[in-house]
């Protein structure tokens, strides 16, 4: 593991250990979600560019205890253009802290892999820090949310190079009355970029449902 990766790992582990002690008495809550979305992938290298679109299925699990949050997301789909097609696999494992009722701080790795038939996979991996905010539009019934992340360390495996990345996700979340269920409509855009100008940009529109367990 490179030194650049070691520092974020230690930071995340320390944060988890410290906050876990603080909230040892709190109860766990868990949320499971599943969703489907449409993705547009823009790949550029110099003057060459490709635009692929496709669908993606995703799932997530969120565990919360006191102010501590852990989130695991996984998504898989296929994007195509007129001439090419790729499988897309993406995932993240984040540790978060509920700083305010409306504000969350996130730390953790995010990865996205493009699998092209006959070629080796192209995987973006970022160690990220991010902020999530939530505001009630019809409090208790409809919220808006936004999440912005920045990769403070990243890499691409082919060609092997360090990378920078950032992303944002915005949307609406409605609470189904009298049920532990939430429905989300979200828009996200993320970009991974190398110093030589190569970049992959992903736009996504997703509908998902979240189910709460106490």
């Amino acid at each position, binding site marked *: 593991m490179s030194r650049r990766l070691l520092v974020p790992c230690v930071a995340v582990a320390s944060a988890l250990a410290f906050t876990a002690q603080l909230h040892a008495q709190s109860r766990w809550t868990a949320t499971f979600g599943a969703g489907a979305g449409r993705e*547009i992938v*823009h790949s*550029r290298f110099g003057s060459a560019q490709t635009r692929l679109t496709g669908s993606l299925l995703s799932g997530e699990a969120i565990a919360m205890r006191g102010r501590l949050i852990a989130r695991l997301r996984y998504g898989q789909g296929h994007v195509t253009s007129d001439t090419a097609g790729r499988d897309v696999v993406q995932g993240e494992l984040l540790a978060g802290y509920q700083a305010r009722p409306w504000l969350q701080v996130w730390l953790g790795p995010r990865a996205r892999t493009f699998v092209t038939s006959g070629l080796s996979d192209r995987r973006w991996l970022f160690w990220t820090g991010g902020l999530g905010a*939530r*505001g*009630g*539009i*019809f*409090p208790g019934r*409809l*919220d*808006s949310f*936004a999440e*912005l992340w920045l990769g403070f360390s990243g890499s691409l495996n082919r060609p092997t190079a360090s990378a920078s990345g*950032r*992303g*944002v996700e*915005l*949307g*609406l979340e409605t609470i189904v009355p009298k049920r532990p269920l939430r429905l989300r*409509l*979200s*828009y996200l*855009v*993320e*970009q991974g*970029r190398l110093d030589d100008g190569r*970049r992959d*940009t992903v*736009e996504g*529109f997703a509908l998902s449902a979240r189910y709460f367990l106490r």
Partner: protein
Amino acid sequence: MDAQDTRAGRLMRSALLLVVLCTGAVALPGRAAGQAASGTLTQGVRAYDDLEFEQAAGLLRRALAVQGKDALSPADVSRALSYLAATELLRDRRDSARAIARRLVVANPRFRPDELVFPPQLLLLYEVVRRATPAVIGEAPADTAIRPGKDAVAVRLYASSVHDIAAALVALDGRMVRTLYRGPIGDSLVLRWNGLDSAGTRPPPSGSYVLAVSSFNRDGRVVRIMRMPIEVLPGPTDTLAHPPAPADTVLLPERRPMGPALRVLAPGVLGGVGVAVLPGLVARGEQPSGVRFVVGGTVTLASIVAFVSHRPGRQIPANVVHNRGIREWQNAVAAVTRRNAERGRGLIGVRTGTPLILTPEGTGP
């Protein structure tokens, strides 16, 4: 065993009877004495009418001797003294009759014996004694309030005979507060005190005072002093009762506030702006899809609907009615307070007590 119980029961009954008898023996004489004062007077008057003067004198003296709450009323005292004076006169005890008549004059300078009941000798004797016994008694409202310098407290003096008097308001330490009158009095006289001290500029401090009326004999000596307690009080300041307060006196907002409406508008507006701006910042060099505005527009539209649903600035009728009731109550309280302040401004309270006639030693009759 039964015999013992029977004997014990008898003993108990005997003891109970003894206690009841003792209690009755202690309680009954006091009650009888209370009833006896007026009853003895009636018996004394009946004995006088039957010309049993010895018996009448004894009964009347006994009636007059009763003290405390069972004593004769002032009117009965005057009646008893007049019959006793007549009895003594008819028993040919003129000195005693004169002394009793003097006592009657001092006790009630306004008293005049009934000409249809008593013999002319008594009427003459009483008249002579009355003329020779200068004394006054006063009557005044028990509790009143005046504006010093504008209003006055009236004290009506009744005299036993024509004589000179000096009336003054004095403090309990003997300090003269205000001379009210000095001169002759005939049958009666009205003293007026305007509530000011001797300087005539301000009322005396609140406290206890005495209206002292000195009666002079022909030699100019003080032979009687009537003392009427007078209490000067701060002016009444709350003469009207405040209206009862409603159950809840906290004013409520009459219009829907802007804050909550802005709080639901802000996330939507920020979300809309974020959808428009952030993709361009995040995905540099790319042209984000216009479809993102569907999400951004939905967020913004939802927040606008939420903002409108809060109806900021619109009246809340229930709160308006609630506040109207409170304001009416507040206005009523303010009006009462104002009226009470107007009523109480410059007022002093004057409370009078029962007058007492004193005869300085060695100055009789």
